[in-house]
């Protein structure tokens, strides 16, 4: 059991963050809290993808001197994916927060249960 935890601690942590983020987005009423939940969800996903490339006791995937062993380097492809995903998450967060400012100007409240202009 401890061995399983030790080997997979990154994945457990990442999925824990994903589930916490989802829970916040579903259950909270304040819009800012929902957006924070979105940020936590995206952090969890990025953590999950980076830890896919991790090698136990691996080094950075850079050829800083000749003759470095490629087998001991961590995988650089997930790192590139995560860089892109972090920037995309940043853009969505910026858009969400500016929409929140406009929403507050129109409605005067950030309580999602009161912002229900459009029904059926």
């Amino acid at each position, binding site marked *: 059991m401890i061995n399983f935890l030790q080997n997979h601690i990154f994945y457990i942590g990442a999925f824990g963050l994903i589930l916490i983020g989802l829970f916040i987005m579903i259950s909270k009423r304040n819009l800012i809290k929902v957006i924070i939940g979105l940020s936590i969800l*995206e952090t969890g996903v990025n953590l999950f993808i980076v830890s896919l490339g991790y090698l136990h006791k691996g080094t950075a995937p850079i050829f800083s001197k000749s003759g470095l062993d490629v087998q001991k380097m961590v995988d650089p492809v997930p790192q590139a*994916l995560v860089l892109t995903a972090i920037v995309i998450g940043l*853009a969505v967060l910026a*858009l969400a927060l500016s*929409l929140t400012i406009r929403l507050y100007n*129109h*409605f005067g409240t950030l309580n999602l249960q009161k912002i229900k*202009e459009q029904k059926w």
Partner: protein
Amino acid sequence: MNELIDLNPVVLIAVPLGLAFLVPLVELISKKIIKWIPVLGFLFNTVIALSLLPRVLKETIIVKIGGFSPPFCINLVVGPVGILFSVLISITGFLVAIYALKYIKEGAEQKYHILYMLLLTGATGVVLTGDIFNLFVFFEVLCISSYALVAYLGYKTGIESSIKYLIQGSIGSSFLLIGIGLLYGQFGTLNMADIASQIESVHSVSVFVPMILMITGLGIEAAIFPLNAWLPDAHSSAPSSISAILSGIAIEVGLYAVIRVLFTIFGVSNFLMFFLFLGVITLLIGEMCAFSQENIKRMLAYSSIGQIGLIVFAFSIASPFGVSGGLFQMINHTLSKALLFLASGFMIYKTGSMKISSFEGIGRKMPLTCLLFTIGTFSLIGLPPFVGFASKFMIIRAALAQGELLYTILIGIVLIGTIIEGAYFFRIIQRMYFAHSNDINQKEESPVAGLIPMFVFASLILFIGLYPDFVSKILNPAAAELMDKIDYIRSVLG
């Protein structure tokens, strides 16, 4: 002319992207010409896509970005499906850009044009790519541009719809990314053809879970039944040209992504029972909700949900007829729904309200616009000389060719949905033409820049409806590409 034929399909994505970022620079020179930049950009795209068409039908073009060879590079796979969608996106983008010359007059126009070109760049990128993470990136470009464009007018309804759309869309994108991560962790590659060649069975848990995550993530944008709560709000609060693009292109590109992931990467062309029922449920819910609406744009948005249900039903019949029927219905939906939204845009502008009850007698005031609206309606329902008839007939024939009782019952339910659709559309037409209105003004027709795109859409609907063989030259290879993943793998990986 030879140089035109040898053009690299990358320009289909690169040129609108470059022009989008050129708009702020051009605005420094003169504010009046920025609205012509999308028109020129998508005219270029249409010409290039149409000139690539004969070349692609002979053999699929694989563009290797960066000079590496697949599976180590990001590649574009311009096959029949890709070029069909690219032509559709370019033509619709071009026509709606002409419409926006006269329709977008208030607000920050520069940002509208930048976001518009980015949305269509994202859409073209999704349909042409052959790499799964590239799909995610272009999908995000499409989604984020549409979040911002829904909120463009700055009214209360727009901001509320946009924030709801944003939250649901971002959950979907995160699910998609988790699915991509799981696939990469298992197979070590991001190339669609490479993953497709390594997947043996979709029933093992480690392949099933990413599939479900990716379908859910992409399905939020494609507006399949439980995931479409954002659609009625978003499509009804956006400006009408953006509603046309969202309904006509964005949700169809989302559905294309679902289909590409299901058919090509996971190779499930034979057990789509779940999607069969989901499609029928989506159709019924969309049509029934549309029947009870008073706001015309909300009604058209629910009708989009219904049509997506029909297309999902067509694709899950999983025979070549079914898949080509689904693709044909996508063409029908893009052309008709864009025409309906464009026409209703000016009708709303002239009457000042979105309620159907205020459209009484408008058929006499704006005769051409209402005639084009009626053509769009007839095509969407599926009446004979228009393209809707040919596409729905293909779907019904595909379902009946399966021969089982289940398909016959489901087709019966689909036709009931069509009857409901006919009911609410005919209700509007009756109000438009046959109700008496109190004010007897002279005719105030929509401006010419608004009428031209509607005319072109209507004439395309009529032309393809009368000569469907014209399009089936592309539909049959496209359906074959989707159904047969071994050919796809061979053409990419060699």
